[in-house]
C-alpha cells in the first residue's frame, strides 16, 4: 500500500484543458473519492494515475516512486473498470487465479492467495463453480477478487457501480467499503453520485471544470462547503440559497433576507451590498409559529424518519427537512426559523464562501 501524490498535474487535449494544475494527496490506505459532474476531469485524473493517459505537465508519485511517465503495467496498480468482464468458461477459482498465472506465480502460492482472497470476499464456498451460473452480486465479487488478488499498491475504480440498479448499487457500496476496511488498500474511486461519495469516502475531492474545488472528509465538505458549487452539488434536497440584501461589516452576525433579519456565524470580512447569497441546508430550517418570515407549504414528502417540506414565500422556494412527528398540511402558512450557526454567506460573483467563524471552529462545531 502507498500514498499517491499529484503535483501540479495538468492535461490538455488540443485546446481543451481537461485537468488544470491539480495538487492532490491520497493518504496511504484511504478510500479517496473523486466526485464531480460529467466532464469535470475526474476520469482523466484517474487515467493519469493509472498510466493510461500521460499528463501534459506535472508529477505523479506512487509511494516514493515517480511514476509520471511509466507505462501502466509498470505501475503496481489495479484498475477496476465500469464493466466487469469474467471468463465465462472458467470457474471462480480460474478467474481469480488468472492475473497471478499471467505473472508466473508458483502454483502453491496461487492456491493460497486465491483462497485467501475468496475468504475475504466471502465467496470461498463458490470457488469450484463456473462463473456462468452465479448471481449478479457474486459475479461482482469474483471481478473484485481478480483485482485484489495481485495485492497492488493501489486500486483505481471508475464508477464501478454505474451500471447496476439502485438496490444492488447500495449493497455493493457497503461491500466495497467493508472490503476496503478489511484490507486497508489505498483506493481512488471516481463517481458522479454524491450519495456514493458521502457514504464511502474517507476523503472526498469535489471537481468541476478540471479543478479540484475542495477536498476533505465527507462531513467537512457537507457542513463547510467553500463554494456555491460544492454547496449545491452535495446534499439532497439541495442547500437553500437566498439572495441577501444590503451590505455587511466585518463582525456582523445577522443578514437581511426577504425583508427579515436572519442569524449567521460571525463574518470575518465585509460584504458589499447586493452581491451575496445566504445558504442554509434543509435540515437547518425549522417550521415555527412565531417568525417574521412566512411561507406557504406547497408539498410534503414523507420519508419515514424525516419529511421534506417544500415552501413558497418572499424568500422564494425553500426546502425544510424536519422530523416525522410534526404534522404539516399543504396550503398551510407557517413561520420559518433558520439555524444561524450553520448558515453560510457566499459571494455571488466569485461563488466563494465568505470567511466566518463557521470555518474556524474545530471540525465539529
Amino acid at each position, binding site marked *: 500500500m502507498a500514498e499517491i501524490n499529484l503535483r501540479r498535474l495538468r492535461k490538455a487535449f488540443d485546446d481543451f484543458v481537461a485537468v488544470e494544475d491539480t495538487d492532490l494527496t491520497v493518504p496511504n490506505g484511504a478510500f479517496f473519492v473523486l466526485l464531480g459532474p460529467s466532464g469535470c476531469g475526474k476520469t482523466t485524473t484517474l487515467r493519469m494515475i493509472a498510466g493510461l493517459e500521460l499528463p501534459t505537465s506535472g508529477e505523479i508519485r506512487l509511494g516514493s516512486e515517480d511514476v509520471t511517465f511509466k507505462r501502466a503495467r509498470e505501475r503496481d496498480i489495479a484498475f477496476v473498470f465500469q464493466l466487469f468482464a469474467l471468463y465465462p468458461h472458467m470457474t471462480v477459482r480460474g478467474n481469480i487465479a488468472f492475473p497471478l498465472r499471467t505473472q508466473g506465480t508458483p502454483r502453491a502460492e496461487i492456491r493460497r492467495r486465491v483462497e485467501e482472497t475468496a475468504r475475504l470476499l466471502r465467496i470461498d464456498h463458490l470457488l469450484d463453480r463456473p462463473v456462468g451460473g452465479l448471481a449478479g452480486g457474486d459475479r461482482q465479487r469474483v471481478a473484485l477478487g481478480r483485482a485484489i488478488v495481485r495485492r497492488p499498491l493501489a486500486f483505481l475504480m471508475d464508477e464501478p457501480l454505474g451500471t447496476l440498479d439502485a438496490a444492488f448499487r447500495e449493497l455493493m457500496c457497503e461491500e466495497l467499503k467493508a472490503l476496503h476496511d478489511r484490507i486497508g488498500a489505498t483506493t481512488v474511486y471516481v463517481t458522479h453520485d454524491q450519495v456514493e461519495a458521502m457514504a464511502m469516502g474517507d476523503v472526498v475531492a469535489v471537481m468541476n471544470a478540471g479543478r479540484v474545488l475542495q477536498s476533505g472528509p465527507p*462531513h467537512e465538505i*457537507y457542513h463547510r462547503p467553500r463554494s456555491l458549487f460544492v454547496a449545491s452539488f452535495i446534499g439532497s434536497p439541495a442547500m437553500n440559497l437566498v439572495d441577501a440584501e444590503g451590505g455587511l461589516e466585518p463582525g456582523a452576525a445577522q443578514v437581511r433576507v426577504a425583508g427579515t433579519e436572519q442569524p449567521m456565524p460571525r463574518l470575518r470580512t465585509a460584504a458589499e451590498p447586493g452581491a451575496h447569497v445566504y445558504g442554509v441546508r434543509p435540515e437547518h430550517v425549522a417550521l415555527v409559529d412565531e417568525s417574521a418570515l412566512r411561507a406557504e407549504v406547497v408539498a410534503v414528502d*414523507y420519508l*419515514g424518519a424525516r419529511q421534506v417540506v417544500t415552501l413558497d414565500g418572499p424568500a422564494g422556494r425553500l426546502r425544510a427537512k424536519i422530523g416525522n412527528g410534526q404534522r404539516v398540511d399543504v396550503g398551510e402558512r407557517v413561520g420559518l426559523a433558520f439555524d444561524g450557526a450553520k448558515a453560510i454567506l457566499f459571494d455571488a460573483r466569485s461563488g466563494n464562501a465568505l470567511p466566518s467563524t463557521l470555518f474556524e471552529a474545530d471540525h465539529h462545531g
Partner: protein
Amino acid sequence: MAELRLEAAYKRFGETTALDGLDLDVADGEFFVLLGPTGAGKTTTLRVAAGLEKPEAGRVRLGGLDVTALPPAARDVAFVFQQYSLYPHLSVYDNLAFPLRSPVRRSDRATVDARVREVAGRLRIDSKLRNRATRLSGGEMQRVAIGRALVRAPALFLMDEPLSSLDAKLREELRIELKRLQRELGATILYVTHDQVEAMTLADRIGLLEQGRLLQVGTPRDIYTRPATIEAAARLGSPPINLLPPNLLPGLAGPAGTERIGLRPEDVELDLAGDGAEVVQIEHLGAETVVRVRCRNHELHALVPGETVLTPGSSVGIAPIPGALMAFGSAGERLERTDGGAP
C-alpha cells in the same frame, strides 16, 4: 382515467407462484406503488394488468369492465419500462408522435402536433424535440419514454421501475416531476419499485408485496408508523428498524406476549457521556449520520444529526425516545400498546 381491480389473481411460472390470489384495488386518479423485493411478483402484477400475461385464475377489471380476456391493445393502458426503449433513429418529436400515428388511432397532423408539444412542455423537453433520441442524457431519455405513454392519455399507467437506472440526483428530480404530472393530470398510476424512498415520496398508497400477496396496504405514514407486522415494519425505513429482544435496555418492554421490540433508528438517542454500548461504525450521509452501536451482543442503528462527533470504539449510552417503541408478538403481529404511548 379509471380504477383498476385485481380479484384473486393467480399466476404461476413452472414451479414458481408469482401471484398467489392477489387482490388489489387502485382508485381512479390514485398513485399506487407496489413495493417489494426481487421476485415478489411486482412485474407480474403489472404484466397481468397490461394483458401481457394471462392469470390462471382471477379477474382483472378496468373502469368497472372485465378485461381479463382482452389483449393489451384493447385495454387502454400505457406501459413505461425501466429501460427507455426509444426508437434510436427517430427524433424526440417522432418518438413522442409515434403512438398517435399508429394505424388504429390515425390522428390528423394538427392534433398530433398539438398533443406532442403539450406533452413535451409538461415534461420540459420542448427544447429537445428535434434532437435524435440517442443524443439525450439518461434523464431526458426517460422523460421521452414517459412522454410516449402520456400522449395517448390512457385510462391507466403501468410503470415498472422507470427511474432505477438513473443516478441519485436525476432520480430525485424525475420523482418530483412525475408526482407533479400525476397531480396535474389526475392520472391513475400503478407503479412498481423496490426503492422505498421512491415509494414513500410518490405514493398516495403503498402496497407491500411479498411472494405474490399483499402484506399491507396504506398511506406511507400509515405503514411506517402503524405497520401490521414485523415484516411490514422492516420494509420501510432506512436504515431499517432495529429489532431487539425485550428488556435489552431499561424501558424497552412491551405488553404481555411481546417477542420482539422494534425501535426506529431516529428514535434512538445517543448519550455521548454515557456508557453501556460501543460505537462500531459511522456512516456520514450529510444531514445525518448513521451510527452502528453494539449493546450486549446486539447491534443497532441510530440516526443522529450530521454534526455529531463520534469515533468508532468510543462508549455511549442508548436512550430510546419514550413512547417510540413498537412491540411484536410471536406471530410477528404488532401488539397495541397499553401504556398510552404514541404508536
